[in-house]
């Protein structure tokens, strides 16, 4: 294993708090792809909430913290296009005029990847053996799609999952209305957007909704649950890692322990 890459997992706030299974799924997928995985304990948040709220000072402070914690690894992998996009596209922007930080920010950006695209584009996985019985539709989370160009990668891997059929919704690339703080700052507009999204999902007849970002997943899962639908909502990593038996879908009832 000496030449297998040393990969740090950037867990992300929402996975840490809401959906640890996604973190374990990421570790499993990375290890199976031949990586040595570490989870630095000093990690917190990538700083995106501050950045998008116009608070550059806190955004920079958090970015510095992330750079510090993660700079020593071969790769940094993030199970989210949104947090991944923050590190990959916005850290260089944050430090563009800072001659010292610019280099380290660019260096970290260059080795940071969203989980699924890391598996396909860097580790060159074309097939992951997994089984999932269901008809799934895939939502393209905005940052992953437009900042990182993630579109085909998850679909390619999902096609290899035994028992799973992919059925596209009409507008998989339209935002679900989460938008970080947007969903609490403009809840009515956000609700309209997620209502349209759920209608689009329901129209496919799929029983499962997959996506690579926890924010969008919480939003869509919460809406479909409020509407009384019983679509199984999961992070794509859970399916690829074959970890759907160990935990119920997002927002679904759990068995008594």
């Amino acid at each position, binding site marked *: 294993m000496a030449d297998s890459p040393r990969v740090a997992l950037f867990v992300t*706030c929402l*996975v*840490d*708090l*809401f*959906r*640890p299974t996604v973190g374990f799924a990421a570790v499993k997928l990375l290890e199976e792809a031949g990586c040595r995985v570490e*989870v630095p*304990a*000093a*990690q*917190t*948040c990538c*700083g995106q*909430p501050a*950045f*998008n*709220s*116009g*608070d*550059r000072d*806190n955004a920079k*402070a*958090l970015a510095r*913290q992330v750079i510090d914690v993660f700079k020593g690894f071969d790769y940094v992998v993030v199970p989210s296009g949104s947090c991944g996009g923050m590190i990959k596209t916005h850290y260089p922007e944050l430090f563009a005029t800072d001659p010292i930080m610019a280099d380290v920010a660019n260096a970290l950006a260059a080795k940071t990847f969203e989980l699924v695209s890391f598996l396909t584009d860097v580790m060159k996985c074309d097939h992951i053996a997994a089984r999932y019985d269901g008809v799934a539709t895939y939502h393209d989370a*905005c*940052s992953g799609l*437009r*900042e990182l160009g993630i579109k085909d990668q998850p679909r390619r891997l999902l096609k290899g999952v035994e028992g799973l059929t992919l059925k596209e919704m009409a507008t998989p*690339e*339209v*935002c679900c209305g989460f*938008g*970080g*703080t*947007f*969903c*609490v*700052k*403009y*809840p*009515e*507009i*956000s*609700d309209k*957007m997620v209502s*349209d999204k759920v209608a689009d999902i329901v129209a496919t007849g799929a029983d499962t909704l997959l996506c690579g970002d926890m924010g969008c997943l919480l939003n869509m*899962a*919460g*809406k479909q*649950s*409020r509407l009384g639908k019983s679509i199984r909502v999961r992070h794509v990593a859970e399916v690829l890692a074959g970890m759907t038996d160990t*935990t*119920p879908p*997002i*927002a*679904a*009832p*759990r*068995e008594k322990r």
Partner: protein
Amino acid sequence: MQPTSHDFKANAHRALGDPNLQRAMDMMRTGFPVNRAAAIARLPEFDALRDEGIAIKNHVIANLDFYLETFEKNVVAQGGKVHWCRDAAQARETILGICRDAGAKTVTKGKSMVSEEIALNDYLEANGVTPVETDLGEYIVQIRHETPSHIIAPAVHLVKEQVAESFRATHTHLPPDRPLDEARVMCDEARTVLRAKFLSADIGITGANFLIAETGSSIIVTNEGNGDLTQTLPKAHIVLASLEKVVPTLEDASTLLRLLARSATGQEFSTYTTVSTGPRRADDTDGPAAYHVVLLDNGRTALLGGEFQDMLRCIRCAACLNHCPVYGAVGGHAYGWVYSGPMGAVLTPSLIGIEEAGNLPNASTFCGRCESVCPMRIPLPRMMRSWREREFARRLSPQAQRWGLAVWAYVARRPRLYRWVSAMTSHILSLVGGTRGRFRTLPLVAGWTDTRDMPAPEGRSFMSQWAAREKRS
């Protein structure tokens, strides 16, 4: 127009509850994007064309003074006149002055957002000159005493039943029980009514999609041909344009026109592209006797050299509106001023102030679809974020939000504290959530839980589970 951008939330609330508007928006959301995508699929070199267009605009912005002066020189050489106007008031007065000198009673108007920006119609009317909008959409909003809700499709917020109603209320000389349920029929009716107005107008006012420096010409594109009648029939033609519309050559304009039509409506080219150069010459069979260009700054030059300079590349194609999920949810009027959607969210604060328009750059999920379709690749989300930074620096953002952010950042900057908070929160929430797996109400996020459930955390936080696992191994 008195801005209501500060009331964006209330405006949006009304819009979301308006069934006609929602029906109209449903149609818009599907129509425009599909047509644009098809047009671009037919032109493989679209992206290369984009780069060419951007280079043209960037070059002009870097040499704006030169091209504007060249433009003026050539307008004058063709027998026309250029009026340089610093702000809206000066532009209004200049136009009224031209109308007065010509003894004009009525003016016909082609579609012009700059005319909305300077609130020209109200001003002319108050001063005894009657403006008649001749673009069908503009005409509809004018007779309804509304403003355009979209920069290229002014009446896109209406369904055809509402238009029929307005036609019956306005065209009272026609039989009240005439059938008006088809768009074609309404179009013909408007055409007949407008024909008389074209013929009686003293002055025609149009906007400009482009001003051509090398020839001193102005270009407009329409799909109805109304612009041609507006500018050729009356005695004088006034072109009202903001100064960033200038491009060096006709060749440059044609590059941009190819981008414009595809991005806007998915057409290869607009139905009518009209180039006007100076007033009627001795051997011309028709045309206006006078040709004026009212060149408006109104805050544009203040954008030069700053973080919003790229906005001056905008060719007003409306692709960003057509693809914006927020615009698609609430329509253009909710934005509370002339420009709406992503381009409005960036431009409006710089034209009427961030104090009034602060909501607009905030009401975005940063989904980035606007930037991805913008033919000029204007970094709209980045610029909205720049506005948020200015707001934050000036403490204009809501206090609760600022405090929430400060508390969160305090914790996030202290990894041990953060791990503890995260472990506690996920633990408590998952216990409270119990076997339901979700919350129907949750304090602090009522905006969310009013309309959707909040999924409950699975159990202990990832980091605490991971730490326990590491300890074991």
